[in-house]
C-alpha cells in the first residue's frame, strides 16, 4: 500500500504544533496501525529526523495505552483500540490524518502523546475499595446475582484509554467516570464508600476541566470496549442520591 500520512507534530506542550505530511510506501494490509507507524519512524530515524512520538504498550487491546484520533475518529474507523486496527481498514492511496486526543484535561506532551493523568486523579479520588479483601475467597462465598456480576464486569472492562473524551464534542469524561463508579457501586465490596465515591470522583472530574454530557452517545459508539450509556444514568443516580443523603454538609 501507498499512503500519505498527515501527522500532528508538536515539540512539547508549549509549542504550537502543526501537521506534517509523510509519504509512505510498501505497507502491508496485514500490519497493525502501530506497526505502520513503526515503519514510518524507522524511515525517519534513518534519515536522522525525530521519530513521531505516540503512546503504546501491550498492543493487545487490553492496556488502554494507545490513543490517536485517526481520520476524525478515536482509534480510527473500527470500534477497537488503535493497536488492534489493521491497515486493511484503509485503501491504497489514502491520506490518513492522525491527531492527538484533544481535551484541556489531556495536555499534549509531544506529538501524539497526551498526558492522561487526569483519569488517574479521578480514580485516586474514590475509584477504590478500602475494605480488607484478605486471601482468595471461596467461590460463591459472597452471593452476587450473575446479571449484576456481568453488568459490573462490563463496566470494569473500561481500559481508561480516553476515547470517550476524545469522541465527545464537550470532551466530557462521564463515560469513563460512570464506568468506574458503576463497577464498584453494583458489588457488595463497593458499598462502604459508595456515596463518598460518587461525590468525590465527580468533584475531581469537574476540577480536571472535562466538559458536561449532552447524551449524544458518541462516547459509547466509539468506545473500544463498548461501555454502555446506562452507566452514565447510573452515575447520575448515584450522585444525586449521594448528595441528598450523605453526611457531607
Amino acid at each position, binding site marked *: 500500500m501507498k499512503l500519505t500520512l498527515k501527522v500532528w507534530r508538536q515539540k512539547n506542550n508549549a509549542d504550537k504544533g502543526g501537521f506534517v505530511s509523510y509519504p509512505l510506501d510498501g505497507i502491508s494490509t496485514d500490519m497493525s496501525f502501530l506497526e505502520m507507524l513503526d515503519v514510518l519512524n524507522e524511515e525517519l530515524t534513518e534519515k536522522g529526523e525525530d521519530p513521531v512520538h505516540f503512546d503504546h504498550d501491550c498492543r493487545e487491546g487490553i492496556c488502554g495505552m494507545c490513543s490517536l484520533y485517526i481520520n476524525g475518529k478515536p482509534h480510527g474507523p473500527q470500534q477497537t483500540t488503535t493497536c488492534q486496527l489493521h491497515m486493511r481498514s484503509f485503501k491504497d492511496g489514502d491520506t490518513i490524518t492522525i491527531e492527538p486526543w484533544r481535551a484541556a484535561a489531556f495536555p499534549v506532551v509531544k506529538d501524539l502523546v497526551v498526558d492522561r493523568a487526569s483519569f488517574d486523579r479521578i480514580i485516586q479520588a474514590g475509584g477504590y475499595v478500602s475494605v480488607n479483601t484478605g486471601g482468595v475467597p471461596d467461590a460463591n462465598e459472597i452471593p452476587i446475582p450473575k446479571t449484576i456480576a456481568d453488568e459490573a464486569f462490563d463496566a470494569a472492562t473500561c481500559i481508561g484509554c480516553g476515547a470517550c473524551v476524545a469522541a465527545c464534542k464537550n470532551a466530557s469524561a462521564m463515560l469513563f467516570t460512570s464506568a468506574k463508579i458503576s463497577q464498584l457501586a453494583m458489588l457488595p465490596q463497593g458499598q462502604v464508600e459508595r456515596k463518598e465515591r460518587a461525590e468525590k470522583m465527580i468533584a475531581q472530574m469537574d476540577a480536571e476541566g472535562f466538559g458536561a454530557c449532552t447524551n449524544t452517545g458518541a462516547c459509547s459508539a466509539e468506545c473500544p470496549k463498548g461501555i454502555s450509556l446506562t452507566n452514565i*444514568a447510573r452515575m447520575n443516580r448515584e450522585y444525586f442520591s449521594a448528595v441528598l443523603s450523605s453526611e457531607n454538609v
Partner: protein
Amino acid sequence: MSWVTKTLSSTLGRKLIMALTGLFLILFLTGHVSGNLLLFKGDGGQAFNIYAKFMTTNPAVKILSYLTYISVIGHVIYAILLGRKNKSARPIGYAESGASTNSTMASRNMGILGTIILIFLVVHLQSFWYQMHWGDLPFVTYDGEEYKDLFSIVTFAFQNELMVAGYVIAMIFLGFHLSHGFASAFQTLGLNHKKYTPAIATLGKLYAVIVPILFALMPLYIYFTS
C-alpha cells in the same frame, strides 16, 4: 459553599437543572398546544378568547406561568454556563471530524437549535403574550361578559406570509430540539431502565413530530381560511 450550591454548580447539578426545566417546558408545550387547538374550532374565536382570559386570570394558571418563565430563564442561563464549560474543555479542536457517524445532528447542535428557538420565543411573546397583557386590544362581548379579542390579533398576524413561514420554520427547529431533549432529560435524571427507556425514546420521537406539526398547522390554517 453549602452542599446545595456546591451540587447545583457541579456539572451534574447543572445538567439536573437543564433536565428538570426542560421537562417542565415539555409539560408547558403540551398544555399550550392543547389549549390552542381551540383556534381550529371555527367559531370566530369565541372559545379561544374565553380560554385566553382564563389563562391570564386564573390564579393556579398564574403560578404555572411563573414556573414557566423561571424554567425558560433557567434553561437558557444553565445552557450558557454548560456551553462555556464545554467550550473550555476542548480549547483546540480537531482538523477532521467523524461525528456524523457516531451521533445525531440534533444531539450535537442543541445549543444552536435552542438559540434559534429563543429568538423565535422573543418574537412570539412580543406578538401575542405582550399584546394580551399590556397591548391595546379590541374587546368582544359573549353573553354579556367582555373579553379581550386576542383571536383578532392572531388572525391578523397570520395574514402575513413571512410570519407564517417564520413560525413553520421555527417549529422544525423545535422538533429537532425535542427529538433529542425529551429522552436526554430522562437519561440525565438517571431514569434509565431496560423496560422503560425504549418507550421513552419512542414517546420522545413521537412528541417531537406531533407537537411541532400541530403548532405549525395553526398559522397555516389561519392563513388559508381567513
